[in-house]
């Protein structure tokens, strides 16, 4: 899977401009990810590719359209130095895997990266390095393990936490 690299403070207006988010159609949202900020993304992204970014990825609006669009575009995970909190919750809730790593910026645009989603091990095959990630807090891991917030609330919900 190929890495698409972004910088710091990538906001929800550049991920999914408000003018394009008057829809809940996931396929359509997948087509508009980074439509103005990085038009080649939508044309060339392949199923399973990943995004790497700097600090505060997903800052700005609460719009869930942003992680939905990234997931629908085929992105299998986002690795960043840090995430904005609403984007972080939204991604966990809809089942878009996120990894926080101080070393996210060691991965370059176009690098071939392999992720073991079970162990959270990230290997940059182009560079021959392994990136360490911070584990999720237990509470959030429970939601991820259920497959998202809807599934979490449909099963035990808050009864067993």
């Amino acid at each position, binding site marked *: 899977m190929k890495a698409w690299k972004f910088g710091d403070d990538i906001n929800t207006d550049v991920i999914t*401009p408000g*003018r394009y988010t*008057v829809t809940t159609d996931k396929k359509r949202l997948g087509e508009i990810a980074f439509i103005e900020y990085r038009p080649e993304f939508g044309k060339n992204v392949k199923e399973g590719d990943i995004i790497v970014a700097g600090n505060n990825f997903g800052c700005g*609006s609460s719009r869930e359209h942003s992680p939905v669009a990234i997931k629908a575009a085929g992105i299998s995970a986002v690795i960043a130095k840090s995430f904005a909190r609403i984007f972080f919750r939204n991604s966990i809730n809809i089942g878009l895997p996120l990894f926080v790593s101080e070393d996210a910026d060691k991965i370059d645009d176009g690098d071939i990266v392999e992720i073991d989603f079970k162990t959270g091990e990230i290997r940059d095959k182009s560079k021959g390095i392994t990136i360490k990630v911070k584990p999720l807090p237990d509470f959030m891991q429970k939601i991820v393990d259920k497959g998202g917030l809807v599934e979490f609330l449909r099963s035990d919900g808050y009864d067993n936490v």
Partner: protein
Amino acid sequence: MASTLTEKILANASHQKEAVAGDFVVADVSYAMAHDSTAPLAIESFSKITDKVFDKDRVIIVFDHFFPAPTVAGATLHQKSRKFVMEQNISGFFTNGVCHQLLVENFVSPGDVVVGADSHTCTEGALGAFTTGLGSTDIGGVMATGKCWFRVPESLKFNLTGSTKKGVYAKDVILSIVGDVRADGALYRACEFTGDYVKDSTVASRLTLCNMAIEMGGKNGIIEADQKTLDFLGGRTGKIFKSDKDAAYNDEYEIEVEDIEPQVALPPVVDNVKPVSAVEGKQIDQAFLGTCTNGRLEDIEVATKILKGKKVARNVRLIVTPASQEIYFAALAKGYLQDLVEAGAAVCNPTCGPCVGRHGGVLAAGEVCISSQNRNFTGRMGDPSAEIILASPATVAASALAGKIVDPRDYL
């Protein structure tokens, strides 16, 4: 153990003796809000969990991001949300104001836990409540259960002292803070505003301060409730919590507001803050006064003071969008709206206006807009090559008059 205001509210709402920063809690939610842009996805998630909202009087739906519908796509989303409102018999359904303003006018009380599917839900914390923005699925979950999980945030204290110079307002103060703290400087943390400047401020100005906590990455903005808060609430009471003197803060900022000049935030990010003198003379095409940041009566009042009996420059269109119907009526009664229309303003119905670029004044390629809103991200208000410059209502009004960005102090 000594606690912050935010920790105390979350402990109370989760029925625990105490809640310490870093703890995970499940709290009872006082109100859950979604608007026309975020409600449809929230309803989809809600419907997968259950078929009845936890309390029809505690779920609030507001059409403010594109009302009346400017496109078929928008009308279709409205149709979907209206169906939900009717089926669930939701009592708090509004089309006459910005969601955050309607929440503070009608619902939020001190001590409440309020969540909204809009990032600027941090605004309402100015009434001494814990209020934060969430995404649609989270709100769908709260609509179903009445509960929400939170990681109790560490707090930052902003101690604001003194009084601002003439022509300098709460917006300049918070822009200056965002410029110093930066876009991720308050990530995941509670932003507590305190000090004699805050105590002396109107509730409207306090709302402006808390509104922009999210622009530093903050989880919530919060101000201890006082007599002014209670007066603003009319009959609503709530439960007043105060931070303990020796409560733990991640960081404390001492800010003397008298040192602050009129500020602007230049594109493409909100923390790109400069004194207005840095861009004085820059020609503008649009001036926008409104939003959850600065669409309140005191904002319209200062703009009217500057514009009354004069005409907006020919190269500028001025758009004024009061933040709620209550404010609209108050501004009407005081004659402000007539003065503004006579000066050349287009006064629109109370909504978010063009802030999100979906209706009510979008920008063409290369245009420059000075706005009282809270975000200047690339492409937010229209063409991605348009520039959005954030400023106080006084700077917006004075610039509309001059046709270029000016220091409002020369116009007051």
